[in-house]
């Protein structure tokens, strides 16, 4: 068992009687390095070999920017929709009793468990002009499949459980007495929810939003089938990476990948900061 030398004033870790720190952290770091860090640093290294000017040319290419806009824009809309409906679903699942609640609760995890390619093909079949839903929307002039709206639909599917599963446990933990107190003090139901309950839920909702958003930005399997893949219109950034690869344009592929990687890393860091902040505040 290794322990960091206890220097005065600065400790790598706080002392604890529990054993196994060295072994578990050592193993975790080794595995993490082998599986995640070395491959990812290979990517960064390849991009670094490009030089700043080439990288900048790739990053500011109109098609790259459009693809990133499509990815981030659709992921944002989908995550926003999921925040509203995900919170609603979580609320209904925790607070209401109705037949089939268990089944519904289990179903929320379906997008976690269903392969994305299967989801993509199924959603395309549903929303294509000849599909079950598409044929209902077509007379109204609404096109879903092969438009950015189709991407949003796929990302709503993919991201829903992230919001529900982050918000649900927090709603379960809400102390009823808080609501009762608010009611006693003369708040109506709407005030209780908006002034008392929602602020407590906000960190969880933000985390769920960020997780769904981050996942949506990178999603590939379910999107390519339904997107239409028109450059500048419905071409997502991961697809552009694949296309650049197929054009033997490795530099562009790694360049775009690095940009996306940096953004995902930043987003996760923010999520974790929110979480540790809210744990300190509400924990």
């Amino acid at each position: 068992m290794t322990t960091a030398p206890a220097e005065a004033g600065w400790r790598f870790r706080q002392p604890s009687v529990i054993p196994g720190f060295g072994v578990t952290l050592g193993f975790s770091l080794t595995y993490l390095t082998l599986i995640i860090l070395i491959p990812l640093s290979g990517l960064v290294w390849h991009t670094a070999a490009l030089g700043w000017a080439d990288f900048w040319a790739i990053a500011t290419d109109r098609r790259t920017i459009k693809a990133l806009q499509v990815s981030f824009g659709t992921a944002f809309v989908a995550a926003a929709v999921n925040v509203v409906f995900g919170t609603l679903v979580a609320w209904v699942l925790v607070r209401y009793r109705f037949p089939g609640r268990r089944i519904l609760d289990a179903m929320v995890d379906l997008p976690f468990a269903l392969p994305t390619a299967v989801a993509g093909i199924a959603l395309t079949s549903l929303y294509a002009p000849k599909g079950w839903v598409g044929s209902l929307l077509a007379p109204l002039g609404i096109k879903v499949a092969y438009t950015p709206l189709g991407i949003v639909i796929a990302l709503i599917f993919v991201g829903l459980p992230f919001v529900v599963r982050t918000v649900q446990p927090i709603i379960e933990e809400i102390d009823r007495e808080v609501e009762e107190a608010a009611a006693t003090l003369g708040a109506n139901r709407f005030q209780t929810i908006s002034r008392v309950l929602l602020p407590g839920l906000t960190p969880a909702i933000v985390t769920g939003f960020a997780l769904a958003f981050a996942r949506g930005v990178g999603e590939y399997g379910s999107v390519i089938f339904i997107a239409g893949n028109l450059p500048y219109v419905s071409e997502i950034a991961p697809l552009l990476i694949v296309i650049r690869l197929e054009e033997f344009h490795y530099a562009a592929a790694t360049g775009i990948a690095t940009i996306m990687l940096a953004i995902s890393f930043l987003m996760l860091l923010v999520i974790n900061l929110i979480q540790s902040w809210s744990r300190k505040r509400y924990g």
Partner: protein
Amino acid sequence: MTQFRPRFLLAGLLAGAVQFGILGFAFADTTILNVSYDPTRELYKDYNAAFAKHWKAETGETVTIQASHGGSGKQARAVIDGLNADVVTLALESDIDAIADKTKKIAPDWRGKLPNNSSPYTSTIVFLVRKGNPKDIKDWGDLVKDDLQVITPNPKTSGGARWNYLAAWAWAHSQFGGDEAKIKDYIASLYKHVPVLDTGARGATVTFAERGLGDVLLAWENEAYLALDEFGADQFDIVIPPSSILAEPPVAVVDGNVDAKGTRKVAEAYLGYLYSEEGQRIAAKHHYRPSKPELVPAEDLKKLPELKLVSIDDPIFGGWKKVQPEHFGDGGIFDQLYKPGQ
């Protein structure tokens, strides 16, 4: 608290591991890998069986042919990154050139090693339209009519799509007497009629046939016939335009890989047999145009009508080595012309 029995979990995992571990892969005497493009699946399914039989009769050896299909560019990329292909049978000369350039595993003069520029079969680009041709599409000029939607894949990723583009270019070149500005206007306007840009020829066919999008699909001739077979001849008609492109999908042995694996003999025989009577008949059966039509019964050739075909080596194009960077390279003519949403 209930006593947790981790042994169950462990036993389950072990049983699983053992069960899957013993299911190894059985290999035949010799195995070769043919890395091909999308629309050749059915062709090579038949041909692989025929060749294995022929090889067994000829040498007594059992050969297993593995097949990998996908967009031509994606497949070339995989070979460049180390996919262990013995032979490549791709949609475009430039894809095999890319492998030769980047890996040196294929000799630069590969195109001269087999007859007919190493293309055992050729094809062309035709129109697949809805039954009865309601939009009355007969020639390339009709594709830019108002309210018409054209389905064609992305020329940057699909080999077939590049042939589509070049066929349209060839028509416009003769139509406008070589006036480059007018040709480019036509091409730009053609791609404004494209609502979905699939990454591969197969995806485009599914979009048109199964999803019901678009009025006309620009397709490989063989792919158009296959769509009739698969989705029913009562749904679509094939329209043969008066002129089109001579598409030559080439084949090559990946020298670097066959020498490392010791499979050169069978790999060369595999490609050579494509030019045999049986190989040519299988190609014709799957609606490819055999490079040696004299070996194929006349009735099999009937459904492949005569039309004016422009070759890639025609002076208006000047061969793949010129066309690839000029039209499809980064910032090339296609990139300049394709500007949707503007």
